[in-house]
């Protein structure tokens, strides 16, 4: 079990480092890319815990959808990030206060007896490897017992799609669209017309 601590510390080190880079890098695009790196390393930590389904969901949802959306927003919108940074010193005391409170809370959690006595630590120390993976187990229950719930979720997503299209689609009556079929049917003889133009006059 020598490999296990090494991978754990590698993943967590990169995760923490990239999280630091997210808030400290000057370029917002770099920030988002570091955020993605941080997510992927957290996904690696989940794999180490034996929660491979959660790891995949983290990559698919957070990296695939949320972070890429962030990236698009950062790149598309003209946000003045230098102006956003201006209040940094002003809010620094409040931020440190929040940080200190968080640290105190965490240390209270670790110091109380009920936490250290519980079996919670045993769960996280070593992964229990089953014959059946989590993904399969979740799938087995999701598509049988909870089939109706799954279907209703699908309907909700369909309604969300219909709604967003209905509210944003504008029918601009005078828009010019390309009609490929009529372009293909253009006859060279009818399309081009020869005219003699007298010198000094228009058509």
């Amino acid at each position, binding site marked *: 079990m020598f490999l296990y601590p090494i991978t754990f510390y590698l993943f967590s080190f990169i995760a923490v480092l990239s999280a630091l880079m997210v808030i400290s890098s000057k370029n917002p695009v770099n920030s988002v890319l570091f955020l993605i790196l941080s997510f992927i390393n957290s996904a690696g930590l989940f794999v180490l815990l034996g929660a491979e389904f959660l790891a995949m969901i983290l990559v698919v949802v957070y990296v695939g959808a949320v972070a890429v959306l962030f990236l698009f927003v950062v790149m598309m919108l003209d946000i003045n990030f230098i102006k956003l940074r201006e209040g940094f010193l002003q809010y620094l005391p409040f931020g440190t206060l929040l940080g200190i409170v968080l640290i105190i809370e965490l240390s209270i959690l670790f110091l109380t007896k009920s936490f250290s006595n519980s079996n919670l630590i045993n769960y996280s120390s070593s992964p229990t490897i089953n014959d059946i993976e989590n993904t399969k187990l979740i799938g087995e229950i999701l598509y*049988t*017992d*909870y*089939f*109706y*719930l799954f*279907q*209703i*979720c699908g*309907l*909700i997503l*369909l*309604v*969300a799609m*219909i*709604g967003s*299209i*209905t*509210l944003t689609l*504008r029918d601009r009556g005078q828009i010019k669209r390309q009609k490929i079929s009529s372009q293909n049917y253009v006859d060279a003889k009818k399309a081009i017309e020869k005219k003699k133009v007298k010198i000094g006059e228009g058509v």
Partner: protein
Amino acid sequence: MLNNFFSILLVPEICLSIFCIANLLYGLFLKKNSFRKTSNFAIIILLFVSILIFVGFKTDLAFFDLFFKSSNFIRFFKILVCLGAASVLIISKNYFIDLKISKFEIPTLILFATLGMLIMIGANNLMIMYLSIELQSLSLYVLASINKNSIYSAESGVKYFILGALSSGILLYGFSLVYGFTGTTSFEEIKIVLSQQTDLSLGIIFGLVFILVGLAFKISAVPFHMWTPDIYEGAPTSVTAFFAIVPKISAVALIFRLCLEPFENFSNEWSQIIFFLSISSMFLGSIAAIAQSSLKRLLAYSSIGHIGYVLIALVANNDQSIKSASIYMFIYMIMNISIFAILLSLKKSNMYLEKISDLVGISKSNPITSLCLAIIMFSMAGLPPFIGFFGKFYIFIAAIESELYFLSIMGVLASVIAAYYYLRIIKVMYFDVSEKNESFDFVISFHSKILLLVLILIITFFIIYPSLLINYTSILRIT
């Protein structure tokens, strides 16, 4: 018991969800008149589904009974929802076309909302309850902001969305607490777990309070009513009609089922909350409506007041309460459909009526329309011999049987106050004299004219043969 494969199509929810998608595709492939055709199709679907619910085929689908429940109470409310949605489509067709927001997605979204409500009424599990509420409200958010040309419509949509999301969050918090302390999400198993306890633990009480708050948002009971007047005013009147009539019915059914099924043995815990919601809704509904000049805001406050009366039946919690609440919701639906049918077809100098003062002089130019409005207003105020009297009558009987004298006296007082603003509309129509001589147009389609006629006849002559409804509702049982 139907064992055929095709019998799953006879389950109302499955049938409706298939037809929802069919209606969407039908609208997509139509070139012209897509709104008119899809809404006609939707009306037929809803009537068909209500027949399916009425017949009530039993199927042995796997896991179906874990999540869905059926009883004659549930079936009654499901039929009310289907008929309510169908009649809203009938009365609002012309209005949508007139306002040039006749998109074929509107009937589809109404169908999806109705599907959500059907699942919601029959939900037997906290998870399915949450999903159905989301399915219903998501369609309603879109419907509220469907009029892209109006800034008020967009505002009402955003307001509804934010407050609805907030209430869903509160609801989910309650669910998670109840799940955490009972270890199950099924209504029946929650009841079994709770039956082993003499007192509710603090966590479950918190969960129950959060769930009731979330549901009170949905039925717009005071103090969670803030969104109602703004959204009713901002949304197009036809959408307001849908909001006022249909989601209220389903949410009332759900709040009854939740209190009387899993938490049946702990009525002391929830009845205080419902008691407060009921009294405050009745009084705010009647007092705040006095100051309104907009008809839609007035109807919003009126619906808040009506919700207060229905909740009296829940506080009473005896064998009369299911019956009286069913009668009340049926009557509420009839009165609201008829008043919106008139509002959606009454125009004054090419504008739809918005203010109460616009009604001045209508008794001279349109005597029949104003007579209909007067009948509905008398009925809403609860004056005999009209139908509205019976709704309140059975509610108060239920309250008195449980010796809730204070609550019933408060209810009567609130309805006296409410009578003021209902009767004021009649006064404006018949006794106020206008300086300008403006003409009213009453443009109503054939179908909604028939519907309105039938409803007015029911409102007026219900007293002759009330036992049909009363006998039917007295056999309704929640389990």
